[in-house]
């Protein structure tokens, strides 16, 4: 701080260096730079629109009064939301999605927290190996994983069952909860826990009463990421689910393959709103940028 202050003072005293600052550069160069800046702004705003515009369109079509999927909506109505609520198939899919996402959250958070805790003092090769092993499933194409799991679990007679889908989703969610928790534990001051141990707390008690309250934000972030990963996954679910165990994305995919169904607009909108709420909740407790960096 003191140093930069001194620098600024020196700059005030002496005239600009000879290499040419913004003010001494020729006009053409400055114009070129200005247009470059404008192109850059347009580029990233276009990407921003590219990323988000679809949601506006999907939400718009879900509110349309007619039976066609059109944007902008010709008349605003909630009739398709009503239709959805009276469709047993979609209700069952929603229930399946919630059960699978809840199960995935529990399994992958437990596995991720345990492994991150076990490796918290370890920086050498065992940590690298475990991280590598946990990450590999994330890099295998979903189709290949879906096919491998379908072939394997159908030999055991476990295909089309909820626990199988939970296991498949946990394969992708666990590396993420593991890496979030590793980053979280690395930031935690473990002397607090040691103090609790010195004062006679048992290990589990010290963990639950001293560590957990301090890493709540990280835990919540890990759990939410696992939940959302499961909620949106569909390639593996497509192979592993049956008529009774279909999740929302699988239902949506099946009807999309046939035609543009207003009910898909409605469920898509609800899914996006659910994700928005989760991201907002995590953003408030853990900070958006931390999620952007840790995962």
């Amino acid at each position, binding site marked *: 701080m003191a140093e930069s202050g001194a620098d600024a003072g020196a700059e005030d005293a002496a005239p600009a260096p000879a290499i040419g600052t913004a003010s001494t550069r020729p006009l053409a160069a400055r114009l070129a730079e200005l247009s470059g800046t404008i192109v850059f702004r347009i580029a990233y705003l276009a990407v921003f629109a590219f990323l988000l515009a679809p949601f506006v369109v999907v939400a718009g079509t879900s509110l349309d009064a007619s039976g066609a999927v059109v944007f902008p909506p010709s008349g605003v109505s909630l009739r398709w939301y009503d239709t959805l609520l009276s469709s047993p198939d979609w209700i069952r899919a929603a229930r399946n999605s919630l059960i699978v996402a809840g199960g995935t959250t529990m399994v992958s958070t437990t596995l991720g927290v345990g492994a991150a805790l076990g490796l918290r*003092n370890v920086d050498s090769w065992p940590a690298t190996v475990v991280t590598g092993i946990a990450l590999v499933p994330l890099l295998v194409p979903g189709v290949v994983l879906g096919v491998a799991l379908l072939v394997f679990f159908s030999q055991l007679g476990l295909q089309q069952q909820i626990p199988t889908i939970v296991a498949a989703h946990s394969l992708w969610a666990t590396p993420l909860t593991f890496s979030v928790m590793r980053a979280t534990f690395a930031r935690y001051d473990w002397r607090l826990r040691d103090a609790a141990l010195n004062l006679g707390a048992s290990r589990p008690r010290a963990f639950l009463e001293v560590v957990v309250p301090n890493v709540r934000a990280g835990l919540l972030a890990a759990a939410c990421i696992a939940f959302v990963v499961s909620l949106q996954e569909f390639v593996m679910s497509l192979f592993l689910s049956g008529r009774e165990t279909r999740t929302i994305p699988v239902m949506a995919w099946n009807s999309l393959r046939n035609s543009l169904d207003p009910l898909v607009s409605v469920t898509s909108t609800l899914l996006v709103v659910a994700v928005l709420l989760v991201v907002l909740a995590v953003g408030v407790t853990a900070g958006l940028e931390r999620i952007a960096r840790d995962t």
Partner: protein
Amino acid sequence: MSLGDATPTDSDVRAAFRRATAAVSGRSAGLVAPLLLFDLLVFVVPFGYLVRISLTEQATAQAFVEGTWSLDGYRFIAESATIRREFVFTLGFAAVVTALAVGIGLVYAYAMWRAEGPLRVALVAGVLVSMFTAIVVKLFAAVLVFSPNGVLNAALVGSGVIAAPLTLVNNVPGAVIAQLYIVVPYAVLATFSVLATVDESLVEAARDLGASRPRAFLAVVLPHTVPGLLVAGVIAFTWSVGSYAAPLLLGSGSERTVGIEVADLLLQEFDWSAAAALAVVVTTTVIAALTLAYLLMRRQGGASAEVAADG
């Protein structure tokens, strides 16, 4: 931690040290074991079984012939002109998607990094929401936006920019756009996570020394970003080589990737030997690409460590 740290004469100290680490790693192992066991049961064993099935005889009446050993599946996919064409298409498709995703990811991540206040929050939130949104929803939305009578064409034709609607679905551009929706958020975050570690005052310093904005970016920021770009490229490439949903929904019958072929062989042709063989080949391709990127990254990592040491 290296072997050279220990003095051979201090055998008592070393034994004590070993006992201490054994106690610590015993508890650590207990906590790490469930994750490893889970990966073993749900990933390693099923994948091993897939490899085993890829080595069985093909059969017409059933999925595969149990207990046989044969290279039928691999021979079948090597000799099929269709599958070879699909393989070439998939690699080209993945290359195009990767190049676009890395470029777009860099522009957006750089904007995120340089932005401040509400704009920064909006840009970060935008990419997170897109990343966490169901792939099905993104693909469905892409159909609504990019189809001939979709929102984009309506806007472009309506405002007179173009005379006739652009065909952006049921072809290669459609498949590429759809796949970009899946990989761009990850490319952005991979690049951003590296950019976030770069000291922003470096840019100001370069500017003060007279570098133009593009020059400051190319000479100062870009070299530091390369590891992030490599990770972005790896994610985009591996996921595109295995792409299934995007080309199936927004491509036409001629934009068939090997991922689609694996699913068809399994579910429609009921030829499990060939499906498993192709799945193994796809995975091997992905792992080969990853290994190559890892070697590149290690070399790059050494170089950037030197840069850091210099600075």
